[in-house]
């Protein structure tokens, strides 16, 4: 079921959602959260598609918010979709005129009652996210600094303004790497003396990985530039030799442990939908990210003091 509403308001949009649900013949709602996607025309279709994929695992009402020109008359257009390739509902809201500064007034009445709200900025996110008028509506605020123009600077800005509930997909991307590293130390409980991370110069995930390793292991961790793509190698130096995971191609990787044959491992870069699905699996604070972020900002501060 699809409706296009031109020059409308939130209550008419809400009414059309109810109408679409009736028409689909399933009045009960199995939706577990509201996912608000703040995007622009250029990224809207890919972001909404990823959100729809995610809603197969986390049935959600998806609200896409597109801010158009501030100049000109106030106007709200909406296209409502129910039950087409999503297990929930999706609404794309197009705002223009002075309304662009008051998106929260449109979104608030459309939130699902009594269930969590997740805000997702698929590219440039405001900083701090928690102070954004839409950000304050959410329990969980997700940025993606890898997709921002300023990448590492954007990641650092989010890190400096961290409040519980914030996360960055640059951090989510690290989960398979962190899993393999933890598994390596499960199998070989050796003391790590130092560590090295190699990645593309602009890669924000590498900084988070360095910070995480440093805070968990309490040793010196250095970052080196490589030609990418993304993260290419992590090396844990121990007295018995190096534990290394290398992924030169961005697809399959090699896992090396001293005294044993090198083994290939699958370590593919995941799609945005997969990252978001992982992100939505827990909606409480990510303490480990918080710790990594604290360690990262501390490192940056010492670096600046030194250069000053």
């Amino acid at each position, binding site marked *: 079921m699809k409706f296009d509403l031109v020059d409308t308001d939130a209550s008419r949009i809400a009414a059309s959602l109810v109408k679409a649900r009736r028409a689909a013949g399933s009045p009960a709602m199995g939706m577990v959260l509201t996912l608000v996607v703040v995007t622009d025309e250029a990224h809207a279709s890919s972001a909404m598609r990823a959100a729809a994929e995610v809603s197969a695992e986390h049935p959600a009402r998806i609200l896409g918010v597109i801010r158009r020109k501030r100049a000109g008359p106030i106007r709200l257009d909406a296209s409502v979709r129910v039950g087409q390739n999503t297990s929930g509902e999706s609404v794309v809201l197009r705002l223009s005129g002075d309304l662009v500064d008051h998106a929260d007034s449109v979104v608030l009445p459309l939130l699902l009652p009594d269930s969590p709200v997740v805000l997702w900025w698929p590219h440039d996110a405001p900083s701090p996210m928690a102070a954004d008028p839409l950000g304050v509506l959410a329990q969980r605020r997700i940025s993606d600094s890898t997709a921002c123009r300023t990448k590492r600077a954007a990641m650092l800005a989010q890190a400096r303004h961290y409040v519980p509930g914030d996360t960055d997909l640059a951090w989510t991307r690290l989960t398979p790497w962190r899993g393999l590293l933890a598994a390596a130390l499960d199998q070989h409980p050796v003391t790590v003396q130092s560590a090295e991370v190699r990645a593309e110069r602009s890669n924000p995930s590498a900084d988070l990985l360095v910070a995480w390793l440093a805070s968990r292991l309490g040793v010196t961790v250095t970052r080196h530039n490589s030609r990418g793509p993304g993260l290419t190698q992590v090396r844990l130096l121990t007295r018995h030799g190096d534990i290394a995971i290398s992924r030169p191609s961005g697809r399959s990787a090699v*896992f090396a442990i001293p005294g044993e044959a090198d083994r290939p491992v699958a370590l593919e870069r995941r799609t945005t939908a997969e990252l978001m699905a992982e992100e939505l699996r827990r909606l409480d604070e990510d303490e480990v990210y918080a710790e990594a972020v604290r360690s990262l900002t501390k490192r940056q501060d010492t670096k600046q003091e030194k250069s000053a």
Partner: protein
Amino acid sequence: MTEPSPNPLRDPQDRRLPRIAGPSSLVIFGVTGDLSRKKLMPAVYDLANRGLLPPGFSLVGFARRDWADEDFAQVVHDAVKEHARTPWREEVWNQLAEGFRFVPGEFDDDDAFERLKATIAELDEVRGTGGNYAFYLSIPPKFFAPVVGQLKEHGLAQAAGASWRRVVVEKPFGRDLTTARQLNAVVSEVFPSESVFRIDHYLGKETVQNILAFRFANAMFEPVWNSHYVDHVQITMAEDIGIGGRAGYYDEIGAARDVIQNHLLQLVALVAMEEPIAFDARSLRVEKQKVLSAVALPGRLDQHSARGQYAAGWQGGTPVQGYLQEQDIPASSTTETYAALRLDVETRRWGGVPFYLRTGKRLGRRVTEVAVSFKRAPHLPFSETATESLGQNALVMRIQPDEGVTLRFGAKVPGTGSGTELRDVNMDFAYGGAFVESSPEAYERLILDVLLGDPPLFPRHEEVELSWQILDPVIAHWATQGRPEQYDAGGWGPTCADQMLARDGRTWRRP
């Protein structure tokens, strides 16, 4: 040995980190079988695809085929392409395929087991599998003893140092209490009980955890979960298919042994048990054993059990043959393809609440569900005509397909000029999940649990024996009753099953 120091990269708060199995390999006996191709091989690939298998993981097939490693890899390749849940990724396949080995041989062939031993030693060397093996016995139960014996004889069952050996056994776990005990004796002589993983693939870990979460994470269901409010419980597992190519196996086993003994009695235990003190395998087992010990058979089995055999008929638009006409089934077979049974749970909570169990092949549609039927309200302040089409409230836990919960309750029909009219309505919830990483197949969870050494939620031998104690007298009774009643394929079972409920003034739900 000193305790290994805790891994600094692990943090209980870090719930994103997947648990990746340690270096290990999986040896499948009966690797050419249906189950292995349709379930095990795809599950191994799906696990690899999700990054949960250890680097260097190896898969060894053992079967009576004249295959080289490459032929085996081709078979796995085709099976994965056809049945895997996750998308195909060439590089995942490539790294996995390097660890495939095939050992041809019979189960009584000593040379073959020596070759298996050499293959495994080679894998330890080349792939770093660290001497850790899981043996998956995807073979008929009569071969369990010889294979387990061979594993012991050739030193394959003893682990050196910190490495481990585990064994996976598929249902049926025996065909009655005596054989179940024998089987257990054979396996437990070689493998300690924590190394034995029994799998009931109908009842995945995910499902068990869903039921537990539903019952014990909520405040509003537990207060009515007892004989004050519940009238009766119906547990159904219906299949629309016939016996397919499993004539030899099925004709010896029958519906009750195939499904009631393991699957339905496990569901009874999960639905009826008290709250476990913790959400772990041990506490769960304690509660399940308690409630299974409290299960009592009806006084008269002729009145409160039923069985049937499917006759020819139409199944979902296709003409199908009857059980006795199936290939390799003797025309005189008395094996039941439908079985129904009333059980009582003799506890304070459940006294007087019958549990009706039924299972069958070639029924209306494929469905597994637990339906809890509530008593009618003691007083209805409506006219009799208003409540004519109002049934009992029901809470249905759908196990498959489309796992979810349905709540059935009465509501007023809008309008209806001449007075109030009440009718039953459904409220439905489905556990979303069709996504890349969402609901893993039961086999994925199982294989991962085996490789991680996670204590399984699957039954230990005590529960298996308790279940046989419940079922054995029923099967013995049926053995004296001649041929089972014929029922039309594509329907909902024999009339004797309907009469069985009618005696108690109840009817079966149409699932």
